[in-house]
C-alpha cells in the first residue's frame, strides 16, 4: 500500500539540500553578471525537485498524483510566461510609446 523509502535516501537528500543551501549563499556573493539569478533559480529548482520527488514520495507515487503535480507546475508556468511576455518584450519594436 505504501512505498517505504529507505532511511539512507532521506539522509542523502537532506545532505544534498544543506550543501545546495550553502552553495546558493556562496554563489550570491560572487559576480557572475546576469548569471547570478540563473544560478540562484537553478539551485532553488533543484532543491524543490529533490523535496517533491523524495520527501513527498512523488517518485514512488501513482500516475494520477504525478499528473496533478505536473498540471500544477504547468499552470504556474502559463501564469508566469504569459504575464511576463508583456513587460519583457516592451521596446522590442520601434513603436511610439503611448
Amino acid at each position, binding site marked *: 500500500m505504501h512505498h517505504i523509502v529507505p532511511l539512507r535516501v532521506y539522509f542523502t537528500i537532506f545532505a544534498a*539540500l544543506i550543501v545546495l543551501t550553502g552553495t546558493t*549563499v556562496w554563489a550570491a556573493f560572487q559576480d557572475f553578471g546576469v548569471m*547570478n539569478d540563473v544560478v540562484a533559480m537553478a539551485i532553488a529548482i533543484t532543491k*524543490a525537485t529533490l523535496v*517533491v520527488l523524495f520527501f513527498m514520495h512523488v517518485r514512488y507515487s501513482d500516475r494520477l498524483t504525478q499528473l*496533478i503535480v505536473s498540471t*500544477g507546475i504547468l*499552470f504556474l508556468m502559463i501564469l*508566469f510566461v504569459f504575464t511576463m511576455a508583456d513587460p519583457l518584450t516592451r521596446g522590442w519594436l520601434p513603436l511610439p510609446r503611448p
Partner: protein
Amino acid sequence: MANAIATAHEHAHQHQFDDAEQQHSASSLGMWIFLAQEIMFFGGLFLAYLAYRTAYPHAFVTASHHLDVQLGTINTAVLITSSLTMALAVHSAQLGKQRLLLVFLVATLVLGGIFLGIKSVEYSHKFHEGLIPGPFFSVVSGDSGQQQLFFSLYFAMTGMHALHMIIGFVAILFLIVYTLRGKYTAAYNTPVELFGLYWHFVDIVWIFLFPLLYLFGRH
C-alpha cells in the same frame, strides 16, 4: 476526517469506500489537489514580485540589502531539517513505530517554532529600522516608493508563508495528541502522511523565497 475513522479494526474504512486502499488514495488525491491550488496561490505572489522586480531592479536591490542573510540562511537550514524530521515521522508511522513517530513530530514542532522565533526577531528589526511600508517608512530617497513596494511584497510573501507555518504548527499539535492516543498504526497513518506533504510544500515555498528576497543582488 481522521477521527471519524474507526481505529478498533485494522482495516476499517468508511462506508463510501470499497476498501482501506481506495480510502487512502482518495485522501491522498484530495491533498494533492489542495496543494496544486496552493501552488497557484503562492504563484500569484511570486508573479507580483517578479513583475515589480523587473520594473524596478535598482530599488529592489537596494531594499533587499536591509535583510539579514545570516538569519535567512539559518532559517533555511532549520526548515530543511524540520522537513527531514517530518519525513522521518512519516517513515516511523509507516513502520508502526509510535514512539519514534512521537519523537520526530515533537522535533518538527520545535524546529518550526525556532523558524517562527527567528522570523519574529527579523520582523521586529524591520519595525525598529522603520522598514514597514506606509507613512513611517524611514528610507529617504528618490525611489522610496519603489523600495516600499519591495517591503510590501516581503511582508506579504514571508507573512503568508509564516501563516502556513503557524497553521502547520497547530496541526502538528493535533497529530501529537492522536499519536499519544495510539491512533496511528502501520495500517492507518494517512493524516501523518498527508500533513507531511503540506509541511514539505511550505518548505519548498521558503526554498524559493530565500534566494529571491535575501540573496538577490548581493554581489
